[in-house]
């Protein structure tokens, strides 16, 4: 049995062979990172006083629909992040310059450079939301720091040809039973990406005899409330397929939509989307995934299949009790209440979803989370809630992982 590089920590070997924990980084096709496919940029601006803040706000009025504040002009000395389409860059930079607004461009370049040089995740702020670039850097650092147990795999590409990454936690060996966790299938559910990163860290620290896979999916967006991927097709100007309606089980049924402009558009056919196909291929080739956890927000729910039907699955009783235990463990951290049950009876009927496919593919312990909150902030959950949410979610996930570990099949 290996000991950890930290020295002396002996991992308990489970009676069952060790697990592989797979963490998939879903890089959903999409609009924005610091630099993206279409050349949009996020500018970081420092406003020194109220007057400058006001000038920034005026900018949106001058360029309606063209600028998108990711971090709005709130108060002086706080950087403002503003997404600008490529076509407007010149104009806007001129405006900023003429009004004496400082672009933290050079500073940003320097920071980015230093980040690339940074070999440590210890300066990463877990209590803020991060850009795609920052998450990529974190992933690389994380893999480097835990190279004994974590590796990074690319399992495919998004519609816009971005890599889909999986973080694989493994103590060696092959074809071991695995637990799959994904987050961020829907871009706007930012709390799930942040939670995913936290969970990766916890898994690396909690060396228990399982190997785990954690997936955290950096988000790329059309706008802050974008849900789907970025695939386009002839005949319609509407973009995107709901990746959580594109799976094979119950495809096209109630709770999904065949209108390409709909937020729950299921796509032309099951697994038509490269993101979904990549995950299906990976999981099927692995052949030994025993639990699958898909993390979404919001509603504060923990659910199991089915979504496409009201009929209970054959393992309903066991899944019900496991969900109940997991929710209790979650509650004990910060007193947050989750409800639990099957997807169709707890949330709504939804067809072609990840966990239905997983269950029908033989992955008995398939669960879907809807994290905080219950509507007060919804997708725009304040960053102050990231760590509490991640902490409680981790306890629920751990409960599921332990049960899976102790109930081999």
């Amino acid at each position, binding site marked *: 049995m290996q000991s950890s590089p930290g020295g002396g920590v002996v991992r308990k070997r489970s009676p069952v062979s060790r697990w592989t924990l797979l963490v998939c980084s879903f890089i959903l096709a999409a609009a924005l990172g610091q630099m993206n496919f279409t050349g949009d940029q996020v500018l970081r601006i420092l406003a020194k006083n109220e007057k400058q803040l006001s000038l920034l706000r005026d900018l949106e009025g001058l360029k309606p629909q063209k600028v998108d504040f990711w971090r*709005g002009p709130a108060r002086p000395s706080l950087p403002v992040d503003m997404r600008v389409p490529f076509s407007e860059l010149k104009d806007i930079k001129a405006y900023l310059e003429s009004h004496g607004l400082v672009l933290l461009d050079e500073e940003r370049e320097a920071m980015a450079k230093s980040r690339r040089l940074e070999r440590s995740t210890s300066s990463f702020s877990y209590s803020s939301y991060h850009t795609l670039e920052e998450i990529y850097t974190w992933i690389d650092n994380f893999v480097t720091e835990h190279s004994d147990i974590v590796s990074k795999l690319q399992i495919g590409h998004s519609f816009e040809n971005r890599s889909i990454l999986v973080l694989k936690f493994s103590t060696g060996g092959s074809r071991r039973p695995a637990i799959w966790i994904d987050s961020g299938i829907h871009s706007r559910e930012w709390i799930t990406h942040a939670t995913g990163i936290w969970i990766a860290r916890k898994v690396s620290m909690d060396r228990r005899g399982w190997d785990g896979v954690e997936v955290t999916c950096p988000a790329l967006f059309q706008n802050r409330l974008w849900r789907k991927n970025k695939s386009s097709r002839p005949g319609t100007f509407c973009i995107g397929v709901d990746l959580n309606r594109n799976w094979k089980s119950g495809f096209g049924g109630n709770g999904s939509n065949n209108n390409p402009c709909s937020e729950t558009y299921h796509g032309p056919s099951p697994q038509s989307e490269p993101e979904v196909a990549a995950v299906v291929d990976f999981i099927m080739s692995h052949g030994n995934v025993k639990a699958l956890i898909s993390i979404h927000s919001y509603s504060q729910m923990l659910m199991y299949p089915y979504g496409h039907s009201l009929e209970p699955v054959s393992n309903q009783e066991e899944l019900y009790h496991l969900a109940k235990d997991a929710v209790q463990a979650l509650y004990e951290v910060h007193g947050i*209440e989750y409800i639990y049950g099957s997807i169709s009876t707890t949330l709504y009927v*939804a067809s072609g979803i990840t966990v239905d496919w997983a269950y029908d593919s033989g992955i008995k312990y398939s669960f879907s989370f809807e994290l905080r909150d219950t509507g007060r902030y919804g997708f*725009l959950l304040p960053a102050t809630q990231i760590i509490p949410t991640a902490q409680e979610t981790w306890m629920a996930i751990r409960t599921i992982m332990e049960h899976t570990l102790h109930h081999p099949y």
Partner: protein
Amino acid sequence: MQLRRQPLSAPRPGDTRPAAQRLAVPLLLLLALQGAAASGEPEDSGWLQDAEPSSRLLSQAARAALHFFNFRAASPSALQVLASVLDGRAWVNQKKEYKFDLVFTTEFYRAEEGEKRLGTCSAQVFFRNDKPRPAVNVTCTQLIKKERRQEEDYQLYKLMKQLKSPLNAVRIPDSHGYIAPSLRPIWNLAFLGSSYVMWQKTTPFLHYFMSQISSVKQWKTNDDAIDFDYTVLLHEFSTQEIIPCRIHLVWYPGKPLKVKYHCQERQTPEEGSGTEEGSAVALTELSNF
């Protein structure tokens, strides 16, 4: 772990009721025909009681009642949100109209950490096919005394009067969920206006949450009242759509809220056809209640 009230149908920590028997859509019909119930329907319209209403359905109805309550109270410092449904009964008729009798708890919308006061409401909610909005009869316990509420509204009003028209392009909250303290009164007032819209639009199948103020067109305070024209993004369940709604409200503390709105409906798939506008403009002026 402190004792908490268990909501009716949904399992929560501590609840041991098996979920398997619950069917959300096909109703278990009791043939005891309920009469008019508290909504005042004299005639027998073939109402059949749903023996096991889903917690989702009850919550939706409770939220509709609360949106209406918040709108009528017209008090941005006393907005309430649903905590949990304590008791709920549901009926449906052959026309697929729904009636609910509910008791639920609420808490303050204001983000005061640690102040978890719970109020209680009872409501009858009636979803009819021919009327666009649910008919609501709702009474709630007072979470704060009337004088204090009026005072807080007035303080809020004074703050708003001092705000210069600032808000031209700021999204509230920003992408990180942050609302600057100076902008909070605006958020509360926007929520009040949105409550009217969400009440109007809620059906047994669709309910809403306010996601973000995406723009402010106008913020005027020249006369006494606050004149607020803004666009809000509503998140629609279960379609997951984001619905932009333009809302124009006029508010003065203690007076009924005047509001009109227009929500944009989803685009059609054909290329070049542009957006289909859902014309739901309503001008409401209420006499004192």
